[in-house]
């Protein structure tokens, strides 16, 4: 049945009506095969990458709102000198939880989530490579986030900073469970990050549609791929840092205790060996968003594709050679520090190349100025300031003046909000029609942009000056005679304008769900494969996997573009292809819904959460997790891989054959 139309000769014998009926039958079968389980079971077991990704997005956005509220509280406290709105204990918890939330629970998960949603659609696959691992990643992430906020609401929020430097975070100076919660939450989010990275690498390398060779890969997918590799190399370092810290605190080791021969600087090396690449893990996917948006809205190919890809890769490498620039004030010899100055300056070059290439693309493009493109303009205006202050911070001697001041607060927000959140909101305006099937309001979109742009600059620009005028970071108050009051007040007012921009976005989203214009499959006439399927996409993504004919799959597709035939419609099958040239290798049956990822996540949670109270919980958790993992693999029916039929019949099909569900 499903292997019907495989030969050109056969195809020729079928009339148009029969062909259409055949296609409808296949689609109905695919619907049945890929139908997600419903109800509570659906919540716990569904492995559809799009649903998992949207859960990630919604969860991460909720954390973004929490982090934003914390920021607002801090800005109220700092609005005037000697304010008593928050006491120091609350303030310290809030800035720690704000940083931790924004870095671990918002930024990394949300940029990876966009990859989990879009990468299979962009490379032309029916699902990701390891759908159950993907599900597990979401659960541990959610549990980690709940752990942090449970602690915070019970006044047990971590208060040693998002970096938790020892000895302050060690057992002697941070008694209680606050820092333990931080350390274990890190472990959860790192696990989740690693799971997501493996999923994306597997999908990009082995599940691309035929014809999508590596040198035709959309820049968005390149960015996700490189980020995933960075996650794999960076995360173990912070797991080591947080793991050793937890064992210092819980089972009396002395890795970081100077009094017993431990080393406080070792912790900083381990933390920043992760912490600096982390910035690029947040930033590189945003570069992918920008490339997608610029292509679609400048109506032309990106200038310098090869240079762009090489820039992304070199950013990924150099990103690992900068970590010491967070530690210039420690007694590390000047000569050693200078290498890190050089590396920190060199990393400007690949980013510069990309910015110049985008500007060149815009220059000769035909601009369709819509909200997503406005956010890209916002990226240029804001991120470049952050990049330039980054060059200043790379200089060892100058860093000694501005390190750990509000100048750095301004710098990092220009880099992360300007460099990542602005593109992210652009990405929301660009891809939400794909997710929901409805357009967001363009008018409200422009309001969002204007409020966020003005608010953001009001909050953070004055902080540069505050830093130069001597205001250190992480202070809960300051003296009236310091003269920092006015600039802080401006900054606090800006925070509320910025927040109102985000609020307009939320209203726009909720409004569009009900009343937004129906988007159709391709509202922007864009170039990548996700726009070839309906909005929202069907659970099986593609009826017939496409055969890609150029870097801009939809723009370069010929009217008689071939498609892949011969995949089962009664099993969850997709095509595995070769790493470099995407030559078909075999048909692969993708694992479907399963409860085991959730149960393994519970086992993991038991180990780390109860482990805060007794080390024996780790043993118990290991056993539980191990048992659940055995069931996970034992219970998987999908081991039988069938060889691909000789070159999956590249049928020169009539255009109707291209799946066009509207």
């Amino acid at each position, binding site marked *: 049945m499903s292997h019907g139309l495989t030969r050109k000769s056969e195809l020729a014998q079928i009339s148009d009506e029969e062909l259409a009926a055949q296609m409808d039958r296949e689609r109905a079968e695919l619907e049945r095969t890929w139908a997600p389980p419903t109800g509570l079971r659906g919540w716990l077991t569904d492995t559809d990458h799009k649903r998992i990704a949207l859960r990630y997005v919604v969860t991460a956005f909720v954390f973004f709102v929490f982090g934003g509220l914390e920021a607002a509280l801090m800005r109220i406290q700092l609005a005037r000198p000697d304010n008593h709105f928050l006491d120091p204990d609350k303030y310290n918890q809030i800035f720690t939880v704000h940083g931790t939330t924004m870095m671990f629970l918002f930024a990394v998960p949300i940029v990876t989530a966009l990859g989990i949603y879009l990468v299979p659609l962009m490379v032309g696959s029916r699902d990701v490579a390891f759908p159950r691992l993907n599900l597990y990643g979401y659960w541990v992430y959610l549990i980690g986030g709940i752990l942090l906020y449970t602690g915070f609401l019970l006044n047990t929020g971590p208060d040693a900073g998002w970096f938790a430097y020892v000895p*302050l975070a060690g057992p002697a100076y941070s008694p209680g469970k606050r820092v333990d919660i931080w350390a274990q939450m890190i472990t959860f989010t790192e696990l989740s990050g690693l799971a997501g990275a493996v999923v994306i690498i597997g999908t990009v390398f082995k599940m691309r549609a035929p014809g999508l060779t590596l040198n035709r890969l959309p820049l968005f997918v390149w960015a996700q791929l490189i980020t995933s590799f960075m996650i794999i190399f960076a995360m173990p370092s912070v797991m080591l840092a947080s793991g050793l810290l937890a064992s210092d605190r819980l089972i009396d080791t002395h890795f970081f205790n100077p009094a017993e021969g431990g080393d406080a600087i070792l912790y900083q090396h381990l933390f920043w060996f992760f912490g600096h690449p982390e910035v690029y893990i947040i930033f590189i996917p945003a570069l992918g968003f920008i490339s997608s948006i610029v292509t679609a809205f400048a109506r032309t190919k990106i200038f310098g594709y090869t240079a762009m890809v090489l820039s992304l890769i070199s950013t990924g490498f150099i990103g690992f050679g900068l970590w010491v620039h967070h530690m210039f004030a420690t007694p590390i010899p000047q000569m050693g520090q200078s290498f890190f100055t050089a590396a920190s300056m060199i990393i400007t070059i690949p980013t510069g190349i990309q910015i110049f290439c985008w500007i060149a693309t815009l220059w000769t493009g035909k601009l369709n100025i819509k909200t997503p493109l406005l956010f890209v303009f916002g990226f*240029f205006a804001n991120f470049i300031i952050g990049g330039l202050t980054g060059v200043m911070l790379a200089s060892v001697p100058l860093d000694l*003046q501005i390190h750990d001041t509000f100048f750095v607060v301004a710098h990092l927000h220009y880099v992360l909000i300007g460099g990542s959140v602005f593109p992210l909101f652009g990405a929301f305006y660009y891809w939400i029609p794909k997710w929901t099937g409805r357009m967001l309001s363009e008018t409200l979109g422009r309001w969002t942009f204007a409020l966020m742009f003005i608010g953001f600059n009001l909050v953070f620009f004055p902080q540069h000056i505050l830093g130069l005028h001597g205001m250190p970071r992480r202070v809960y108050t300051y003296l009236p005679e*310091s003269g920092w009051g006015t600039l802080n007040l401006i900054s606090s007012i800006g925070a509320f304008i910025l927040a109102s921009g985000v609020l307009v976005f939320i209203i726009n989203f909720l409004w569009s769900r009900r009343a937004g214009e129906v988007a159709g499959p391709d509202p922007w006439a864009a170039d990548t494969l996700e726009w070839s399927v309906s909005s929202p996409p069907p659970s099986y993504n593609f009826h017939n996997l496409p055969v890609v004919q150029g870097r801009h799959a939809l723009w370069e597709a010929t009217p008689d573009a071939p498609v892949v035939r011969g995949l089962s419609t009664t099993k969850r099958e997709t095509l595995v292809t070769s790493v470099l040239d995407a030559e078909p290798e075999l048909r692969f049956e993708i694992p479907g819904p399963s409860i085991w990822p959730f149960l393994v996540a519970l086992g993991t949670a038991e180990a780390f959460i109860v482990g805060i109270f007794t080390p024996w919980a780790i043993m118990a958790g290991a056993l539980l997790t191990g048992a659940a993992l055995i069931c996970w693999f034992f219970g998987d029916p999908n081991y039988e891989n069938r060889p691909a039929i000789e070159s999956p019949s590249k049928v020169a099909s009539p255009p109707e054959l291209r799946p066009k569900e509207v």
Partner: protein
Amino acid sequence: MTEFRKTKLLTLAFGALGFLSSCGGIQNSINPAGPNADSLSRLWWLMFYVCTAVYVLVMIALVIAIRNGGRKSDLNPVLNPSPETETRKRNAVLSAVTATVVILFVFLIYSYSTGRALTADLAQKNGLSIELTGHQWWWEVRYNDVDASNIFTTANEIHIPVGVPVTFTLRGGDVIHSFWVPNLAGKKDLIPGKVATTWLQADKPGVYRGQCAEYCGLQHARMALWIVAEPQDQFNAWRQNQTQGSVPPATDSQRYGQQVFLSAPCVMCHTINGTRAGSNFGPNLTHVGSRNTIAAATLSNTREHLMQWIVNSQQFKPGNRMPQNNLGQTELDALVDYLQSLK
């Protein structure tokens, strides 16, 4: 749209210049008062002007690009731009990248030579040597000298002679702190288990405020210090006084105050040289009456503040290590009389 952006940019640029050039302040890295901070400030201004120029140029390019690209009405994708435009774009990008590389090299070399000049001098400085230890949340200051009788310990207020380089040996007493006096020098961390050195020099007499720059817990915000730079003879007089033991109480009230001090919990943590009080947990109070501030540069050293601080220091610095003290009014008056007499 573009007009709006341009206007905003200009406003931002001029606003920034206006703010930044309004130098002043006693805790301000771009108001240098010594050679160390001065060379850093020069490095800052070089980078500031070059980076501002770069930013303005890139924004101009962006605005022109947007104007140029925004004029077209048909939105069919262009897949094969003409070779001439491709060449023009390549040349433009290449020259922009080349300019970036050149600027970065200038920065790198200037930065490296500034850094070398600052650290290379360190070994040859044989002015004054001070050992600074960070505690939650105050600074222990020890003046070293080859003559052991000239060594003394004080807290939170560092007097230095004008025009003389002062080297600091930095130690972490509990957690990591960072020593930073913006008008005089960049910061350096005080890390438990490590020893760091830095130096500074004040060229003008005056007071300069420093503040802990590494998050060190609950009262990180209220861990500051003062550098008092004074002419050499004034400094010598101050130092001469500091090396002496405490002034013996002269009035009945002061004598009673000393008794109160020695019989109250004060003696558990503080030292007053020349008395039985010899604990090093809190700041050394031998010459507390001569200091301008108390509580790590949080409160001015007035009679009222001293009283409030002794009775309930938590209202000013919640979480600090000093307990509340229930003293009667007479005892308190006498105690403060005594402390104020410790010049």
